[in-house]
């Protein structure tokens, strides 16, 4: 069996496989950088090409593309305040302020390092847990998903730096927005005003582009100054290396957030968007100087980036073990499995150990190489931060419009993006937190569905399940440790 594992890993060092991986990565980077497009779009485009390809080659292409696309998305989040993909929205909380202060290079360095090592972490966990894959996935059901989503919602209060009350209001409004659309449990339409467009709710891409991209563009146009407000922009290789070192400086944060990402990735359905925010909130809570988060703090970039990349390794677990996708990307990749003639599931692990390990190797290598390529390109990409705002702003607006349109070819998506953009700008002026609204929007309806499913399937006893209890306890302490700590100190002193 060990020879199989070794063969599997070595098989990726075939010239054709590497070439296809490289090609996929280039496509992925471009897609990630363009706002509105993402790895999912890339998979849809590339999957027809995979018909008839040998399996390792097929997956080198697809996974190379997918790994690289999320890194491309980080670049736009950091440089332009536009998340390239949903999970990147957490990156811009500290990534963009770092760019504004002239430290774009360092932020990019952190992002790339986190991508490489986060992906490595997820891949290693995946490899190590091979024998346990099925029991792990079987332990997670709707109650566990509900608690994780609830934790994510609880972190909304943590995110808001200015005023927790305003943060909660924003989050609440985001939750309300998430309820628009077809409600799966009851079969009713909510707040759709009989419009087909709103049947599926407010779309993710117009929301992300509108909420974050448009206010940034408006600010740029109105102020006229470039994104980077510092006199000197530090964006040389040594700055990126500085960011690289940040990962090792904050290794505890890295390990914490990669673990969070991997665990959340294992749970099918909860989605990668949750991972980045829970990681960010946890890192802030665990940090010695939480008030620095949101102002351009390196840990604030490290946290979401490591979790997002570790998540994909975790998401492969249910995909391989059961053929049940752990993330949206894995869902499309499942189709690729079937096209090359493989069936994910226990039989795959038994009969194709070598291929499974070559997948792990591709995942790791794709992340690492993607970082390297992007690092080389970064010095050129960073130049955008010096472009005057009167030019950059309109360019961003155009990118937002194109990105919104590219999702489904529906002009209403563009209209939504701009309406949400107006909301986002108003919120920014009134100091309400956009990230809080975004998090509420992502998690609100999800929490509702999981809560209902848990109750229907298990009754209130669902709260007594072991993993659920553990998560509740961890969550409670993590959110309240400050005043709990003071409480214990006081009792300690009294005794």
């Amino acid at each position, binding site marked *: 069996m060990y020879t199989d594992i070794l063969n599997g890993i070595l098989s990726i060092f075939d010239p054709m496989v590497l070439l296809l991986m490289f090609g996929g990565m280039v496509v992925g980077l471009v897609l990630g950088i363009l706002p509105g497009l993402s790895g999912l779009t890339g998979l849809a485009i590339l999957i027809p090409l995979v018909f008839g390809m040998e399996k390792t080659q097929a997956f080198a292409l697809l996974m190379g593309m997918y790994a690289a696309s999320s890194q491309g998305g980080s670049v736009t989040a950091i440089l332009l305040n536009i998340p390239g993909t949903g999970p990147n929205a957490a990156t811009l909380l500290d990534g963009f302020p770092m760019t504004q202060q002239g430290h774009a290079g360092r932020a990019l360095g952190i992002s790339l390092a986190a991508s490489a090592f986060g992906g490595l972490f997820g891949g290693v966990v995946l490899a190590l847990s091979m024998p346990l894959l099925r029991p792990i996935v*079987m332990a997670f059901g709707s109650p566990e998903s509900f608690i994780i989503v609830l934790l994510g919602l609880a972190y909304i209060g943590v995110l808001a730096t200015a005023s927790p009350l305003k943060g909660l209001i924003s989050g609440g409004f985001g939750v309300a927005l998430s309820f628009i659309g077809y409600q799966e449990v009851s*079969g009713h339409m909510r707040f759709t005003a009989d419009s*087909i467009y709103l049947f599926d709710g407010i779309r993710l891409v117009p929301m992300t582009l509108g909420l974050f991209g448009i206010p940034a563009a408006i600010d740029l146009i109105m102020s006229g100054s470039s994104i980077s407000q510092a006199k000197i922009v530090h964006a040389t290789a040594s700055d990126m290396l500085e960011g690289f070192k940040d990962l090792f400086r904050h290794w505890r944060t890295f390990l914490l957030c990669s673990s969070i990402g991997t665990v959340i990735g294992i749970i099918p359905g909860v989605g990668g968007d949750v991972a980045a925010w829970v990681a960010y909130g946890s890192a802030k809570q665990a940090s010695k100087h939480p008030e620095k988060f949101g102002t351009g703090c390196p840990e604030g970039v490290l946290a979401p980036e490591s979790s997002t990349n570790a998540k994909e390794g975790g998401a492969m677990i249910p995909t391989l073990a*059961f053929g*049940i*996708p752990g993330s949206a990307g894995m869902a499309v990749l499942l189709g690729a499995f079937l096209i090359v003639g493989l069936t994910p*599931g226990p039989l795959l692990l038994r009969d194709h150990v070598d291929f499974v390990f070559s997948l792990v190797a591709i995942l790791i290598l794709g992340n690492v190489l993607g970082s390297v390529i992007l690092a080389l390109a970064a010095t050129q990409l960073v130049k955008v931060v010096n472009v005057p705002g009167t030019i950059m702003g309109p360019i961003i607006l155009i990118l937002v419009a194109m990105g919104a349109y590219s999702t489904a*070819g529906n002009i209403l998506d563009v209209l939504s993006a701009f309406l949400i953009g107006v909301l986002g700008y108003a919120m920014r002026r009134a100091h309400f937190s956009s990230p809080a609204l975004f998090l509420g929007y992502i998690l609100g309806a999800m929490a509702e569905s999981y809560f*209902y*499913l848990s109750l229907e399937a298990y009754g209130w006893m669902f709260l007594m399940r072991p993993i659920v209890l553990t998560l509740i306890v961890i969550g409670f302490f993590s959110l309240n440790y400050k005043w709990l700590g003071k409480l214990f100190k006081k009792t300690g002193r009294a005794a």
Partner: protein
Amino acid sequence: MKTSTWGKGLYFLAALFLWGGFVPVRPAVAAQSVADFYKGKTLTWICPFSPGGGYDVWARVLAPAVQKLTGATVVVKNMPGGSGLVGSNFMYTKAKPDGLTIAITQSFTMVIDSLFDNPAVKYDFKKFTWLGRLSTDDYVFSVGKNSRYKTMKEIKAAPRFKIALDSRTAVNGAGVTSFALAANLENASVVAGYAGSSEVKLAVLTGEVDGTSTSIGSQWQMLKSGQLIAVAVVGKERAVSLPDIPTIYELNPNMPAGTKKWIDQLTTLQDTGRAVYAPPGVPRDKADYLRGVIQKAVKDPAVTSRLEKQQFYVVYLSAAEYQKQLESLGLTPQDKAELQHLLLKKY
């Protein structure tokens, strides 16, 4: 006044255009055959669901075959939204009937939305230019390997038999309702709200719910590996891939006429399966040409082998036959109310 050289030139060109416009000079175009019409053109194939899903796969697997047969470039365009409504509405109201736009659809959804008077429906499904049915979809009701209730006897005796659904629509509920109705399960209780078919299957595996009904194709891997156990096929006949599994009719040979009426109605609706169509008003010659192309394309071995890899089987029905089937679909207001109750509220 002397006219300038430019003026003379323009005058000459204008005369040429005016004169040319009056001369009938296109006998070749009038005699162009339909086959020639398609060569070199772009045929847009609308898929009203997201990329990667079952309907998308069918369209993308058939597209190269259609391209080869017609000489046109076939482009699959996804238009997801409203569970297919966005695509159907587009094909009825906006797509041009010039024979260059076709679509694939889940006819069941299209028909039910229309029969249940969904206010967002802008089409009359009987007026579409139907080009042929690609497949019916066999649905199978299954329980998990570790389920507490595995035989029909155990299922009937269960205090509460939980059945998973993703979203609580009429179409999704049909397989479940047919099974529960046929087996006369008063203890059946639907647990709806799962994000998708994967989550539904996982819930059955972990024991969160007791069973579910989805297409055989989507359950195939798990059925083969024994993680899911098939209980009954939801359809009028046994499935080719599961010859030992009884149909829901066989579960209850003495089904009362009232129940049988509903089961018949539901399985007929289910049999409308996947179909290809064009906007209303496509000229007869182009429609017939496309019908012939589809009929040939589904026989292409490259197509069938790729489809079969994912457990999709072609069950072709000609456009003429299919149109007849669709014409016969209709509900009296009383039937409509009762069917809605059965599909959405009873369990």
